[in-house]
């Protein structure tokens, strides 16, 4: 797995990739370019095709149609063991019959690397993942976090052109997950290898990634930098999946450059930015982030009754009933009492208009 990249294509290019299992489509046409050295995340609910996408890149599975390229090299017909790509599996998949050292050395042995170099590379890698002095331990003697770090070292030691990570932190507790997120980011910066990271945890993806793709039922809904995706989601689904959002049905009553005037019935009317291409008179959805809904604040205000209150640490989560609509809010500071009628509001500029939510076609 030499890192001599003569072709200056993107690290990974997927063109028109479809994957069919019987009658069901796991992927319904994916086009994606991932740049060299990028930390790229695929997020989406389970069954959206993110793991399938990884498997097509690693060669553990093949597309029904479409092509996969790694640095411009077509991967069609190249078996997994010959691809310049390695994977960190969700279940770690460490070899139980080998100790830590031999687990990390596994791929190097396959490449017939001389013993001396194996020793050097393995110890460098174990240092990089902060796991030294456990060379002779068996995987099952280690904690989940340690096992995952060995899995990372085992894949990285081969200098892959691309490292695929399939929900690597999924089985760990929150504190450990945060700690390992930091480690992953540091390691990625240090080795400069392209990381493609699969997770269903939007926060995790956002905190680590250069770019993120949101998948839904085998299609990409949106690709972009985390901030973009959060602030300017292209669909109601994306808005809801990343960070959760109040979705208020509205009608477009005026279109001006870069913004729309919307009418939300009894919630009133306001002007805010949104995706391009919406038409006058069209049904649309106003996305309002819970954290922008504040007690008594904002230039769009509504009267509501608190129906649910939950304490989640730094903030309170509130549900407010406004007619049939339930609006969620995140507030800190003084909180109203349950059943208390209160004035809530948000700034028109903080809302974002997208096309009315449609159910995805059945796969």
């Amino acid at each position, binding site marked *: 797995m030499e890192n001599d990249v003569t072709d200056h294509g993107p690290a990974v290019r997927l063109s028109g990739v479809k994957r069919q299992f019987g009658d069901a489509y796991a992927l319904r046409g994916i086009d994606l370019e991932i740049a060299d050295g990028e930390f790229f995340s695929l997020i989406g609910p389970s069954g959206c095709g993110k793991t399938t996408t990884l498997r097509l890149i690693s060669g553990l599975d093949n597309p029904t149609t479409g092509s996969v390229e790694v640095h411009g090299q077509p991967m069609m017909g190249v078996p997994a*063991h010959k691809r310049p790509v390695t*994977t960190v599996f969700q*279940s770690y998949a460490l070899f*139980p*019959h080998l100790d830590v050292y031999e687990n990390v050395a*596994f*791929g190097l042995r396959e490449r017939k690397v001389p013993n001396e170099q194996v020793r050097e590379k393995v110890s460098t890698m174990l240092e990089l993942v902060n796991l030294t002095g456990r060379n002779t331990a068996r995987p099952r003697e280690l904690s989940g976090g340690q096992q995952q770090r060995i899995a990372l070292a*085992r*894949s990285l030691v081969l200098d892959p052109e691309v490292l695929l990570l399939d929900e690597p932190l999924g089985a760990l507790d929150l504190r450990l997950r945060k700690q390992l997120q930091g480690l992953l980011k540091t390691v990625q910066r240090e080795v400069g290898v392209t990381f493609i990271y699969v997770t269903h945890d939007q926060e995790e993806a956002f905190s680590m990634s250069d770019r993120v793709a949101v998948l839904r039922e085998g299609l990409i809904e949106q690709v972009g930098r985390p901030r973009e995706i959060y602030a300017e989601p292209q669909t109601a689904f994306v808005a809801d999946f990343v960070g959760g959002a109040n979705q208020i049905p509205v009608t477009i009553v005026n279109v001006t450059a870069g913004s729309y005037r919307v009418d939300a019935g009894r919630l009133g009317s306001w002007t805010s930015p949104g995706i391009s291409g919406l038409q006058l008179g069209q049904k649309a959805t106003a996305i309002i982030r819970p954290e922008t809904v504040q007690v008594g604040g904002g230039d769009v205000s509504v009267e509501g009754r608190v129906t649910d209150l939950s304490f989640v640490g730094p903030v309170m989560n509130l549900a407010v009933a406004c007619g049939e609509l339930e609006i969620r809010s995140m507030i800190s500071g003084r909180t109203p009492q349950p059943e208390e009628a209160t004035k809530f509001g948000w700034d028109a500029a903080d809302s974002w208009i997208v096309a009315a939510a449609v159910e995805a076609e059945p796969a």
Partner: protein
Amino acid sequence: MITRRSILVVPTVVWAGIFFFIPLGLLVFYSFGQIDIFTFDVTWGWTFENYQRIIDPLYFKPIMRGVGISLLATALCLVIGFPVALWMSRLGGLAQSLLLVAVMVPFWASFVVRTYALVNLLSDGGPVADALKVIGIGGGAPGIMYTPFAVAIGIVYSYLPLMILPLFVALERINPSLLQASADLGASSFRSFRRVTLPLAAPGIVAGCVLVGIPATGEYVIPAILGGGKTLLVGNVIADQFLELGDYPFGSALAVALMLALMAVLVVVRSRLRNTEDVA
């Protein structure tokens, strides 16, 4: 310590004591005795003469040949059983259940009857001989019946399920993601088999070889039927001492020696297995 619960083991202890330990004790006792070759009277004594006779080439050569046949049959079981077990372990659902039943079905028919069925298959003019003649092997040559080969076939046939089942259990337990990881790290499917499947199946291989090898070494019925008295395994040599020659002391010494040898093998295997279990 006698508790109320330990009363439950009394029937087992009594049964084992009367029908297992007493005969075994007699056997050990006999093995140090002497026999009058004319009157068949056994004189008790403490002589090692019977044990010394074991290494007499007259007995030792057929004994070792018998051991060789058992080892060969065990090896054949492993070679034939492994691919079957591997295949079964990769199947799922109904197909796997059906195959498991198919492997065990022969146990539901009498062992002796099945061995006699093999006689019809293997004897001259039988289907196996005919088939061999068609492909041009052994035309006119004496058949395979009553040869060591027939005995080996009989053992493989009868004991194969005992090899397949532990192999299957070991192979089925291997997490498929380990093979994916191995491929991902650059190992071809052959290399993955060598470096992942085989070492992880080691406990199953050992268990299968013990389950087949040990009873095969003492096997009595199969050589009696298929070997026609010409190919003797250790079990037959022992039985002959008792039933044909009436030499109880020597027969006992052979039995005790066989038992000790097999126990030694088991102890070694168990300790080796503990090391691999550490691993699995």
